């Protein structure tokens, strides 16, 4: 950008001009960087959360567990939970294990995104032993989901769990130690809960100790945290309540947090059984202790928070049908519904829109009527989409009795995108130079031939750009479709059949709290589709505008 100083202009003038030029360049660059930054952050966030499931979850138990679940005092007998190796679960919180074994969860969907029914098998050799296991895993008042899975011995439990998809079972841990069984895998269970005195979790100066992390628990147990204030709680000294060294909970704490034995800090209150643990914790100010989740009072439990990172979007998400309200499976039918909806909407709106735009610019004579029409179109373009949804519901669904379905939805959507298509097409048609029309007439072409073969052809890149704009709006539209096209996530089987699109699916997944992971995966699919359409159409526009860039170079 080296410029020769003009001899006529004073040097201060060129200096100022150069400074202004530099400032403008800096401003332009900042704007460009900012825009790309915002785009990158939005796309990056969606794509990251779409491909990686990264969640903060809260549990009533701590984040560490063992394969070996002690079931009581004395000689510390223990059991192991095993699942069929097709189940994508390696770890369970005690409450999840309870729900699986007692029938609260009858499908693996909520835990592993697999649509598999839960089947329970367990050995029924020693009634007393299996009662102890029931109390340890389910708590005193909860029963097994059924006793149909009761088998004569541990070996038959292992072979049934290995044979049945979605099977879960428990066996004495020694049964696994004999020979490594095939087709089953042990599941780590997180059994310990943190319980605290009621003041600890009370709202204090507008703040509340809402959830702990594993590192907080380790710090509490080692005596590093002496006041609840440092965890955001009330100004109250921490009092550790600890089981005596004979209890399995005490040795489990040592094993999980300290790699050996745990020596409670000085001033800890010793207790010897679950009953006195609960009583001591609730009656001592600032008290905290760890006990088995099945022994804890629900009101005493401090929730534990942990970050869970896993793979989210997989190829199967594109290929599988959604099941269980989208909690399980993919979005294949929803993708097809969306594409069908877009094709139908474009099939309705493009001919009408382009014809209207062409008529307005090429043929219409009555200036006043045209300006009224144009004002109407521009106003319609600015009306919020939900209004089109309401209008579509009243007119197409109710008055015309088309029902909530594909036809009503696409008609409402057509009304919404028509103004966009008309306005952009009008601009494109207007920008075709008069000289091209003239030369077409001079070659003996009629008005109609000129309009179709020259004007529309030359305007086609601009018209296509408008259609993409409309396509983008339609693809992202949920408000219009909720009232008019419905939310059925199965593949449509007719024009009247209700259909869910990706945007509506995304809205419902979040609104109904079904699954944030699936919502982000859906968002990723939506972004991929819109970007792919944009990219493809940009290429098409490049080919349609046949060398107009070269034309610009030649003047």
């Amino acid at each position, binding site marked *: 950008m080296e410029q020769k100083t003009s001899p006529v202009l004073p040097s201060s003038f060129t200096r100022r001009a150069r400074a202004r030029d530099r400032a403008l360049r800096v401003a332009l660059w900042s704007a460009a960087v900012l825009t790309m930054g915002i785009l990158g952050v939005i796309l990056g966030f969606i794509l990251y959360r779409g491909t990686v499931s990264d969640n903060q979850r809260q549990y009533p138990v701590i984040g560490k567990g063992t394969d070996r679940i002690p079931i009581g005092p004395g000689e510390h007998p223990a059991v192991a939970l095993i699942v069929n190796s097709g189940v994508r679960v390696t770890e369970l919180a005690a409450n999840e294990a309870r729900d699986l074994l007692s029938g609260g969860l009858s499908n693996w969907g909520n835990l592993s995104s697999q649509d598999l029914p839960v089947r329970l098998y367990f050995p029924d050799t020693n009634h007393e032993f299996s009662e102890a296991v029931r109390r340890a895993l389910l708590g005193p008042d909860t029963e097994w989901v059924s006793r149909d899975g009761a088998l004569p011995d541990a070996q038959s439990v292992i072979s049934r769990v290995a044979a049945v998809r979605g099977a879960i079972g428990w066996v004495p841990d020694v049964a696994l130690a004999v020979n490594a069984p095939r087709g089953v895998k042990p599941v780590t269970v997180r059994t310990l809960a943190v319980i605290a005195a009621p003041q600890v979790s009370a709202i204090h100066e507008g703040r509340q100790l809402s959830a702990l992390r594993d590192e907080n628990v380790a710090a509490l147990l080692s005596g590093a945290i002496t006041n609840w204030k440092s965890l955001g709680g009330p100004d109250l000294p921490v009092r550790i309540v600890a089981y005596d060294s004979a209890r399995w909970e005490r040795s489990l704490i040592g094993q999980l947090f300290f790699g050996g034995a745990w020596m409670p800090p000085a001033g800890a209150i010793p207790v010897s059984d679950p009953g006195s643990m609960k009583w001591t914790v609730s009656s001592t100010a600032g008290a905290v202790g760890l006990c088995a989740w099945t022994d804890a009072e629900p009101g005493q439990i401090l929730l534990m928070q942990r970050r869970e990172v896993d793979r989210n979007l997989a190829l199967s998400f594109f290929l599988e049908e959604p099941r269980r309200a989208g909690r399980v499976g993919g979005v294949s039918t929803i993708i097809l519904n969306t594409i069908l909806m877009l094709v139908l909407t474009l099939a309705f709106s493009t001919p009408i829109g382009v014809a209207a735009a062409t008529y307005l610019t090429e043929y219409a004579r009555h200036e006043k009527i045209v300006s009224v029409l144009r004002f109407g179109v521009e106003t319609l373009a600015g009306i919020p989409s939900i209004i089109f949804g309401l209008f579509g519901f009243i007119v197409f669904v109710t008055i015309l009795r088309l029902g909530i379905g594909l036809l009503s939805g696409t008609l409402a959507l057509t009304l919404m995108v028509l103004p966009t298509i008309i306005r952009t097409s009008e601009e494109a048609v207007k920008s075709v130079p008069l000289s091209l029309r*003239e030369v077409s*007439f001079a070659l*003996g072409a009629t008005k109609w031939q000129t309009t179709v073969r020259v004007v529309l052809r030359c305007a086609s890149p601009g018209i296509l750009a408008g259609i993409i704009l409309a396509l983008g709006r339609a693809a992202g539209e949920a408000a219009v479709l909720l009232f008019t096209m419905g939310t059925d996530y199965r593949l449509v089987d007719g024009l009247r059949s209700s259909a869910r699109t990706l945007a509506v699916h995304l809205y419902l997944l979040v609104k109904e709290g079904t699954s944030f992971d699936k919502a982000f995966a859906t968002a990723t699919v939506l972004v991929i589709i819109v970007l792919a359409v944009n990219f493809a159409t940009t290429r098409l526009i490049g080919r349609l505008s046949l*060398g*107009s860039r070269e*034309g610009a170079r030649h003047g």
Partner: protein
Amino acid sequence: MDRPVKLKVHQLTLAYGALTALRNVSMDICANRVTALIGPNGCGKTTFLRSINRMNDLISGVKIHGRILYDGTDIYGDCDVIELRKRIGMLFQKANPFPMTVFDNVAYGPRVHGQTKKADLEGIVVESLRRAALWDEVKDRLRAPALGLSGGQQQRLCIARLLAVEPDVILMDEPSSALDPISTSKIEDLMDSLKRRYTVIIVTHNLQQASRISDTTAFFLGGELIEAGDTRDIFFAPQDRRTQDYILGRFG
């Protein structure tokens, strides 16, 4: 004049609303000759040119009196304007190829007149490009975008597009005013060969060009035809003083 008269203009008056652009113009234009229309800006020569193939019809508020007889037929009388424009083609000041391929540009005219057979179209395109002296330069680029050609090539492409509809008369409105001298000389050479088959009428501001290429010259001033005749006579022995002044560069 021994040559047959192609166009006979009789007392043509043309007004855009209140503005009279042409006043009582009468003139004979001979077949297979190049007729140059000269005169200062706004003298009505382009208006005159455009009224020959009724391009002025496209402008609203134009009033025309008088007659133009094309091979004896009054073009403002009972005449098919589509057929007329097919017979009387026009080349514009600025090269204006369609943003299509070279081939599609030349084939546009035949196509709108119903020629759809691919083999016939190809024949017409090749022949037209040859006649426009462009074939050798574009024979390998028929499917390339026309806007990728140079300015001079684009103007010759426009000539080829014009020739493809088999006109009888070619109207040219300052066809080389936007071109460099080399491209201009190519167009001028082309005009010389074109007049063997066609009747050419050209508007030009370039007096040297008019004297080089035309057989007949007509001088317009203020919407009136001042003088028309053999080019040599107009340039070397003008009858009217105003013609002489213009030729000698005293105004305009």
